[in-house]
Each structure stands twice: as structure tokens, then as C-alpha cells.
């Protein structure tokens, strides 16, 4: 039985503890970040003959050594800020991957092409005139083939996702089966902790080995702290990274400096704008870090009389976009998250006996999550990323607007109805004082609950924006080719370029849009 890929699929990857002196390197292209944007860009550029060096802040993690299906191990190791990333007020918990492969190490494998409604909005409102399905389709087709993206078979829908599927069906709410990037998946349910069987076709098993096989060199545990600019601030001259000790995630004192003709920043939303801010790149209109979008998530949890076992099975196999278009209001879509004890304990409200009561019913618990399509309404600017002090910690702010709260209230009502229709004994919101719902008449109480920071649990697993693409330099950071408006040899290739959120899980959008942009970058004379 040959299900597993080789455990060390990227040849010549250099790790922090192997770098024992300062290094000065030269490349045609230096790529910062190895998530979907950085990985596919590195693969495309290397295939074109460019000498590519890729710098990644996180470590090299492999199935054998690191993916043991343990939350205690996975979150500190594989997530930004050791699993503690959040908005400044802790009002929104931010789940964001970190390591060679970026978010694809830990995402739940859900793949959507960018919706036409999203592309149309970007064309009309942000001047991205050639952001069309026709242009991106060849790239999506190639990515779907490379990552083996396929729709799940109905037999792969676990009891947890079946709550959404069957409850929605009873209410006449449209759902869809999801597409996943897996090969020979055993449905363990641990995608979020690093795939323990290498079934997930993440970047570490696909585009990064592709890039490496064409000569690209990957340096892990190298945190780029600054892009050096020329005196006129028209070009990037070097990327300066501090080497991290992979055991303690502390600087070793060594540095890696990469000089290159061109630079690609692909650290993901939050980290990419932060790097530009730390580097003092020209930003005359103050756009870096603005328009940061999260698909803010609220959930309802339901208790059934039977076991749901939300721990196991393909984490996500069903979604509903029935509420994505709400004229004049913020749309939302529904999915199901995997539930394991640690993550569930963070979501459940209260403490002491009340909290423990919820935890004791975890095996019979279902959660439906509603993800808000933020940034679509005029005036919805989302959040911001900035620096607390020069070169120091990030400040991440995301004030929920009334349009967000309205969508959250409506989404919780819809989710609760679905769970009740699926046979739930009781549904609870994640307000500080949960609304307990056993029938339709209980739903109105949702309208009266406060929804300020830390008065309801809000999450994000999809970070977008912060280096928005757009035709107008006064309103964006990069142009329609994802090239920086003011630095001629800098491109930004990740989800930070999205001028709004997507309305779908972002992985495939990043891959397809960056692939198309990389094609143009290659065609552009140096």
C-alpha cells in the first residue's frame, strides 16, 4: 500500500539550525513566504529559468516528525504566534498557518474558484479590469490537476457535516458538496494539525518540490525583518532575514541577506503588510495594512442525543452559499468545522461548571459556522494591520460594524434552525450569556445579546487584504499585475492583495490568481 509521499519532499531545504554563519546570497528572484502564493510563484519562476531563493519564517514540518494529531503540539508549532494570534482586544481569534507550506499545512482542504460576483466587484469597484474567470481558468485547471482537487463523494460526508446537509435540506436551503485537495484521504479529521498521512496536497508536497526540482532553494526558519530599498526608494535591493532557532523560535544571531533583481512578498495577509510597514516602503496614501478582511466567523453549537463525533472524518464536505447575496446587507456562507477538545474549549463561553457542561457533551456536539463576506458593502473597510512600535509587534484591529453584527445575528438564526431541523436537542450561541434555543420562538433572544469584543466568540481562518490590488494608487498597494505601485521590482503574491474578502475559502483563489500574475511577471522585462 503506497499511500504516502516521501517524508522530505523538498530537496536542499536549509533549516535554521544548519545556518551557522551570516549568509549573503544572490538570486534572480527572492520570494518571501512559502504559502500558496509564494510556492506557486516559486514554481512558475523556477520553471522559467529564474534562480529563485525562497525565505520562510516557519520551520520544515513533516508527517513523521511533526504531525501527531495532538493539538498541544500542532497549534504552537504550525500556527502564527504559536496559536495565539488575535486582534488586539482578543475579540477575534485568528487561526493562520506558519511553516514551509504556509496555510496549506493546516487548512481544511476546501477548494473553491473565485466566485464571479467577487471578480465582477473587483473589476467594477477596484479597476481590476482583467480579473476574469476566462483569464484565470487555465490556471485553476492546472492547479486542480496538480493538487488533485475533486468533489467529495456523498459517502465521505461525516455525521458532523450531515447535520448541515440534512438540516438545510429539510428547510429547503441549498447546499453543495465541497471540493478537496487530497489523494487517498483516510478521513482522519486532523487536517488542521498537519495531515498525518500526507494525503493533503499542500504546498510542501506539490509546488515547493516542483520549484526545488528546478533549482529553487528554500531557507526555512528565516524571518525576513526588512526589505532594503535603494536611496531613491524606487527598488528593493535586498531581503534581510534573521535566522530562528527552530526549537525555541528565537533569533540565533545569524542573518541571511538575499540580493536579487526582483522580489516577491508572499507572507500572507497580516504578515505581508507588516513587512512592508517595517521596511518603510513608499505608501503616500497610507494604504498598507488597510482593508484587512477576515470572513469573520460566528458559530452555533448543538447537542444531539446521538454521537456526532465531530473529531473525525473529512473536516469539511458540505457548505451553503444560500445567504451570500443579501442586497444591502453583508452576505454569509455556512460550513462545518472539526471540533477537538482544545479548540472547542476556547470557543465555548463561560467558565467553571457551565463551560465544563458543554465540554462533557463534545462527542454529541455539532457546530455550524457562518463566515461573513466582508468588504462588499460600500464603507466596509474591514480591519487594519499596523505596528505597535518600530520594528516590533503587530497591532491587528477589526472593529465589527453594525452590518457585520446584523449578518451574524441572522446567520446564527439560520444555523440554529438547520441544527434543530437535523434533530438537535438544543442549540446554543457563543455569546457570553449563550442563547439557548430549543424552538423557533427562542431565536428572537439573539437580537438582544450584546456583541462587543469578548461578548461573543468570533474567529477567522481566512485572512485577506492589507496590500489591496487596484488600479488607483491612492486606494491600493499593488496594481492589477500585483506589482507594487511605487517599487518597480516588488510584487505581492498572496491573499493580502484581495481588495475584499472572497465569499469562499481562499486557497484556490490565491493559487490561480498568483499563477496568472506570475506568468505576467515572467513576461515583464527586468
Amino acid at each position, binding site marked *: 500500500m503506497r499511500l504516502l509521499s516521501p517524508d522530505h519532499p523538498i530537496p536542499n531545504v536549509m533549516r535554521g539550525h544548519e545556518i551557522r554563519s551570516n549568509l549573503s546570497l544572490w538570486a534572480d528572484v527572492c520570494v518571501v513566504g512559502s504559502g500558496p502564493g509564494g510556492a506557486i510563484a516559486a514554481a512558475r519562476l523556477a520553471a522559467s529559468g529564474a534562480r529563485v531563493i525562497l525565505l520562510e519564517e516557519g520551520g520544515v514540518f513533516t508527517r513523521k516528525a511533526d504531525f501527531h494529531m495532538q493539538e498541544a503540539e500542532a497549534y504552537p508549532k504550525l500556527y502564527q504566534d504559536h496559536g495565539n494570534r488575535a486582534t488586539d482586544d482578543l475579540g477575534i481569534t485568528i487561526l493562520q498557518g506558519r511553516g514551509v507550506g504556509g496555510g496549506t499545512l493546516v487548512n481544511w482542504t476546501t477548494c473553491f474558484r473565485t466566485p464571479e460576483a467577487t471578480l465582477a466587484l473587483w473589476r467594477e469597484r477596484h479597476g481590476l479590469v482583467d480579473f476574469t474567470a476566462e483569464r484565470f481558468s487555465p490556471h485553476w485547471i492546472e492547479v486542480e490537476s496538480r493538487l488533485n482537487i475533486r468533489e467529495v463523494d456523498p459517502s465521505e460526508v461525516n455525521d458532523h457535516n450531515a447535520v448541515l446537509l440534512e438540516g438545510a435540506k429539510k428547510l429547503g436551503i441549498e447546499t453543495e458538496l465541497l471540493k478537496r485537495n487530497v489523494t487517498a484521504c483516510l478521513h482522519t479529521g486532523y487536517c488542521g494539525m498537519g495531515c498525518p498521512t500526507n494525503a493533503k496536497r499542500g504546498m510542501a508536497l506539490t509546488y515547493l518540490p516542483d520549484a526545488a526540482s528546478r533549482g529553487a532553494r528554500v531557507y526555512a526558519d528565516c524571518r525576513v525583518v526588512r526589505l532594503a530599498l535603494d536611496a531613491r526608494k524606487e527598488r528593493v535591493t535586498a531581503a534581510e532575514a534573521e535566522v530562528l532557532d527552530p526549537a525555541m523560535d528565537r533569533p540565533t544571531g545569524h542573518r541571511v541577506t538575499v540580493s536579487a533583481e526582483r522580489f516577491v512578498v508572499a507572507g500572507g495577509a497580516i504578515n505581508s503588510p507588516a513587512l512592508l510597514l517595517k521596511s518603510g516602503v513608499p505608501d503616500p496614501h497610507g494604504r498598507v495594512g488597510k482593508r484587512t478582511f477576515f470572513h469573520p466567523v460566528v458559530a452555533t453549537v448543538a447537542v444531539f442525543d446521538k454521537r456526532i463525533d465531530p473529531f473525525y472524518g473529512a473536516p469539511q464536505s458540505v457548505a451553503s452559499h444560500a445567504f451570500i447575496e443579501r442586497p444591502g446587507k453583508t452576505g454569509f456562507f455556512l460550513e462545518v468545522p472539526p471540533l477537538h477538545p482544545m479548540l472547542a474549549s476556547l470557543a465555548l463561553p463561560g467558565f467553571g461548571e457551565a463551560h465544563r457542561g458543554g465540554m462533557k457533551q*463534545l462527542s454529541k456536539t455539532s457546530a455550524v459556522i457562518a463566515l461573513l463576506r466582508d468588504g462588499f458593502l460600500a464603507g466596509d473597510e474591514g480591519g487594519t494591520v499596523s505596528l505597535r512600535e518600530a520594528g516590533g509587534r503587530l497591532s491587528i484591529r477589526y472593529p465589527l460594524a453594525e452590518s457585520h453584527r446584523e449578518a451574524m445575528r441572522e446567520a446564527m438564526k439560520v444555523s440554529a434552525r438547520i441544527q434543530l431541523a437535523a434533530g438537535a436537542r438544543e442549540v446554543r450561541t457563543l455569546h457570553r450569556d449563550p442563547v439557548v434555543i430549543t424552538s423557533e420562538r427562542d431565536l428572537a433572544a439573539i437580537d438582544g445579546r450584546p456583541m462587543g469584543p469578548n461578548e461573543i466568540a468570533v474567529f477567522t481562518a481566512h485572512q485577506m487584504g492589507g496590500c489591496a490590488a487596484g488600479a488607483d494608487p491612492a486606494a491600493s498597494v499593488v496594481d492589477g499585475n500585483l506589482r507594487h505601485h511605487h517599487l518597480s521590482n516588488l510584487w505581492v503574491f498572496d491573499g493580502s492583495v484581495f481588495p475584499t474578502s472572497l465569499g469562499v475559502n481562499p486557497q484556490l483563489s490565491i493559487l490561480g490568481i498568483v499563477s496568472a500574475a506570475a506568468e505576467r511577471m515572467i513576461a515583464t522585462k527586468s
Partner: protein
Amino acid sequence: MGAALLAIGGGAFLVLRRTVRAAKPRNPLLVLSLDEYAIFAAVAARVVAVDGDSPSTDAVDVAGRADAAMALWPGSVQVEFRRLLRLFENALTGAVFRQGFATFTASTAREQDARLRLWSRSDVAVFRTGYQAMKRLACACYYAAPETWPATGYPGPPELPFATEAE
């Protein structure tokens, strides 16, 4: 506001009230002081509030796990969290919330729950944020421990029977 309140925790810690060190660390501490370890152990005990079906927070060494987790945090975040613990423990904080001049560790379980509840519901954002920070760390450290899973109905990760065969 937040910084000022945290400064109270660090700078104006009431010396007339001492932390009760009911919990003792099993291993040398990496970040927390002995007092801070005891404060967090007391907080965790009320946040998780186990019953007879589950191991205690001390049995799981939640405070020790938290100390190890904090060792990976940036120094400035460590400092803030330690200040937060001292502010929460501070007898003055109890007085502000009209709970008398008792430190958290010297309070009864009922008084401790009341202080946690007041912080979680405070109109002052930094108190709600502080409550969340302590609650999340306590819950994460407790429920990440395999010995706590049976009470939740979580059987744990599955066996992967093919692993050695495939490689």
C-alpha cells in the same frame, strides 16, 4: 487605560497582601515567578472547575504547561501576561470590584468565581480582554492533555495502521 491598569499589576502590587502559594511547580519555571505560578494555578482551577470525572488542573499541571507555552512567546507579551496575573491577584482589584481587600489566591472559591465573572462582564475592555487571555490559556493547557479527554467523550487520535507498511 489598558497599559495603566496593567502597570498597577506590576508596579503598585499591594505588599500588604501576599499570594497564597497553594500550588508548587513540578519543574523549574521558565517564565513565571513562584507567585505568578500560584496565581495562574488558582485561576485555572476555577476556570476549568473539574468534577469527579476529570483530573484536577493541578494533576494536569496546567500552570506548568502554561509556563512552558509562555516560554515561546515574545518577551514583551510575557511581561504583559505576568502583569495581568499580578493585577488579577491584586487585593486592590478586589476592592475596586467591592470584594474586600483579599488577593485572588486568598479568596474563597465563591469569591474567586465572582471576580472572574466581574472581569468577564466588565465595561472596562481591558478586564474582559484579561479574563479572555487567562481563560484561553487555562482551557488550552487543560484540554490539550490526553488524560482530560475521556470526560469529553473524545477517544483521541486514531491509529494509522498502514504507516509502517507504506514506508
